[in-house]
């Protein structure tokens, strides 16, 4: 056993490349940990029962719902949140695509969509529409009716492919 059974535990995680350590209640969900303990409020709470996807983050590169994961379970993991996408004031190409294709309205569900799409396009640079729908089907949006989100993902894939092509060409 790494530690004895306890209602409070020490948790060490890396979030967007920065290490954090906190002593927390074992019952604290990961999303409440990110928002309340670390002040990273970009990840949103939509349903707290794992069905809307607003709280999606990357846990060691995989898209997961942070409202139905305990923070203690993330001990030792590398987490990426929406705050980790843009760098140096520049939007990530996926964020750019959502902006250009009007893939958001109220924007509350958007961080969850962005993280799910990030995982998809990391592993599948040229996804079919079915593959895109498989991922988007796990997140609820009440504003857009999904049309512009689908277009945004297609645009994002094209942007990332172009970027990778350029990098490969340079290298």
């Amino acid at each position, binding site marked *: 056993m790494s530690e004895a059974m306890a209602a409070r535990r020490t948790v060490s995680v890396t979030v967007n490349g920065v290490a954090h350590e906190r002593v927390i209640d074992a019952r604290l969900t990961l999303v409440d940990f990110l928002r309340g303990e670390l002040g990273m409020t970009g990840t949103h709470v939509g349903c707290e029962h794992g069905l809307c996807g607003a709280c999606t983050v990357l846990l060691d590169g995989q898209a997961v*719902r942070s*409202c139905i994961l305990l923070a203690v379970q993330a001990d030792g993991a590398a987490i990426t949140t929406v705050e980790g996408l843009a760098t140096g004031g520049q939007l990530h190409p996926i964020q750019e695509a959502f902006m250009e294709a009007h893939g958001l309205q109220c924007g509350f569900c958007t961080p969850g969509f962005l993280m799910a799409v990030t995982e998809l396009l990391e592993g599948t640079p040229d996804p079919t529409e079915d593959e895109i729908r498989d991922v988007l089907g796990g997140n609820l949006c009440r504003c857009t009716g999904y049309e512009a989100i689908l277009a945004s993902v297609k645009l994002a894939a094209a942007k990332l492919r172009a970027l990778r092509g350029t990098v490969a060409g340079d290298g």
Partner: protein
Amino acid sequence: MKPPPFEYGVAESVGEAVALLQRYDGEARVLAGGQSLVPLLNMRLARPAALIDLNRVRELDFVRASGNTITIGAMTRQRSVERSPDVQRQNALLHAATQNIGHPQIRNRGTMGGSLAHAHPASEYQAAAVALDARFTLAGPSGTRSVDAAEFFVTYLTTAIEPDEVLTEIAWPALSPGAGWSLIEVARRHGDFALAGVAATLTPDARGRCAEARIALFGVGPTALRARGAERTLTGAALEGGVFDEAAVSAEREIDEPPSDVHASGEYRRHLVGVLTRRALREAAARAGVATSTGVA
């Protein structure tokens, strides 16, 4: 919607997990992928004194193919099962059942053992396990024991796992060579639990007659169940339209009173069993390469 207080500990081995379960004497629960348990905690519908986290039990994360069986560790993520070449090659029904679970974001975290131990009667995994006679290995204080699917699923959200036991692995018999399969359901939305569903395999003999039929009905009772009468109807028969209709009628009659809820009445569910059995058998026969007289599905 915040979980009640509980103690938490990480088990690093099956032995540790079993010891902890014993210590809490029925008041602890194991935590696998958490995709069903944590929502229940958030709603305070589950109030365990302690959670024993199995996510670091490395010995339970594997997919092992040997001969006619694929054995999968209980803590193997559904995403890993979905991507396993062995599963895709040996057991297309299991592969399809995995893909039918929720969405990738759920499968990334959800485990095969967690899903089966949750024992939702509309679960595709449960249906596949019942159809294929999967075997379940349970580890407890006095060693391990093995139960088959019919024994494992006791009733709604209840399995044969004792309070001091851990589900460790599931052995999946491969589909017979030449078998066709089908997994179909009616759900309100894509990715939802089925209102009713059918998992079926058909193995034709050299003359196109049915050597073996396996039909599991799910979402229509406290557990998924085999339509044994329908299977008997099929076995030895020529695989074509008429016998599928007979089998469908049989399946519809074999189930007890199906549940009624906000999405479907029991009567409607019973009707769906017939419709879906007929369609599943047609699809399985087609996949087995048996030409069947079509007609309106």
